[in-house]
């Protein structure tokens, strides 16, 4: 009996000093397995994601959507699930998309997302969608100018073609022609609230989980219509839309399921181990 107890204590103390590399290996397996065999765990759709979906669904024909956001390439990955779901949703609607990047990384990210979702195959460049050039100087300077005179601020698109040659800008030039503003990224919501919201242009945000809490006051004040909550919001949006090429949100939620249980188990083991070691020390 005594011997057994001693053995169990040594297992606990062994568990305390397990090498980090093994823990990481298990993590990697937990991440890769759901990719190979997606279990598609069920989860409910949050009210805020639903509101965004309904809003986009009810957009009138001929709407002009501006996609203007900022962020770092790698961090936008988290919000890209929602953004791609959004692109998939508007793909088959009669809408126009203007990409106005507020950072150099969005300049590369947003056209890439358009390509991945196949939006560019359905729509014609120049007539239905366009990528504007990045204008340096910061959102405080560029956004007010953009809202009043797009052609005056941007002059050319990203490929160097003058805006006057692009058919989309025959009818679009200022805030009066913009139906909706979407922001894929993170840190531009405060500037948008300051410079875009006063013109009564509704704003939808696809933001990180960290900013979801931080930017809640803007929704309460009515400056931003609604936001999605990080990767979970992306998963919910994907569920509503049905399918996006990457399915990043859904796949991540699958992994998250395993990953969170794994971490919970580790923490429980660590805590029991600490208590056991304490007992052992007391005995001695």
């Amino acid at each position, binding site marked *: 009996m005594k011997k057994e107890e001693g053995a169990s204590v040594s297992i606990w103390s062994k568990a305390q000093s397990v090498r980090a590399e093994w823990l*990481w290996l298990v993590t990697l397996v937990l991440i890769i397995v759901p990719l190979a065999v997606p279990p598609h*765990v069920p989860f*409910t759709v949050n009210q805020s994601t639903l509101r965004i979906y309904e809003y986009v669904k009810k957009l009138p024909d001929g709407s002009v959507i501006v996609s203007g956001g900022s962020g770092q390439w790698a961090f936008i990955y988290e919000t890209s699930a929602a953004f791609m779901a959004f692109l998939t949703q508007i793909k088959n609607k009669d809408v126009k998309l203007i990409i106005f990047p507020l950072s150099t990384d969005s300049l590369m990210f947003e056209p890439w997302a358009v390509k991945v979702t196949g939006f560019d195959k359905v729509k014609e460049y120049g007539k239905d969608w366009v990528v504007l050039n990045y204008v340096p100087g910061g959102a405080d300077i560029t956004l007010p100018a953009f809202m009043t005179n797009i052609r005056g601020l941007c002059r050319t698109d990203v490929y160097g073609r003058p805006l006057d040659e692009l058919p989309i800008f025959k009818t679009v030039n200022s805030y009066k022609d913009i139906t909706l503003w979407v922001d894929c990224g993170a840190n531009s919501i405060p500037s948008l609230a300051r410079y875009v919201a006063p013109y009564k242009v509704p704003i939808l945000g696809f933001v990180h989980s960290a900013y979801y809490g931080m930017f809640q006051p803007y929704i309460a004040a009515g400056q931003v219509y609604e936001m999605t909550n990080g990767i979970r919001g992306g998963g919910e949006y994907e569920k509503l839309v049905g399918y996006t090429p990457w399915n990043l949100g859904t796949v991540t939620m699958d992994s998250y399921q395993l990953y969170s249980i794994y971490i919970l188990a580790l923490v429980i083991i660590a805590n029991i181990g600490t208590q056991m070691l304490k007992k052992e020390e007391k005995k001695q």
Partner: protein
Amino acid sequence: MVSKVLYRTILPYVIFMICFVPVLSNYYFDVPILRSVETELRNWSTLIGLTAMFLGLANITIYYYREIKRRKHLEWQFGVYSIALTYAWIIYGLSQGGLTSPAYNEIYVFVKGHSEAAQIGLLTFFFVTAAFRTFRAKNMQALVLLIFAFIPFIGVAPWGEQIWSGWPAFSEWILGGITMAGSRAILIAASVGLVAMVVRIVLRYEKGGLIRG
């Protein structure tokens, strides 16, 4: 020597005040000339900040050069590689026309974008070990940290809402209430500390980035 002290410590402080006072007071007082002074000074500081990148480039070049000179195996090779890649990147970027060129975009996305994403991906792994090591209820403080960390953690996980359907709402409530209150306290307190620190610099008890002594 009087002139040495004048040039090295007094004059920089005077310049600091010349920049500090107009920019600060323009926010409070309605004086037209202050506005143009502030715009000009802001322009200046942007230009200076941009030029500082050449010091950074010089610094890293010296560091790599030292690495090469030490001739330690597997160090000098990387020194040569880093110098070559840095300057090749600059030359390539400038010759391609920078951000707006598709060719530059491509290497930016595949080299820098992929690197960044892979580095951030490491966070997932590091959280596992950090949780294993730190989230132990050694005392009351650790226990409180542990319990509150797990509320939103389970709230996001799909199994959380299956064991209790109110979990996501509960975690949102914690985030909107207690977390918001705590971070608000941190913000307010930090703002007081920040102002006190700047006042100390103005009163010359602290030197900031200027020369000491």
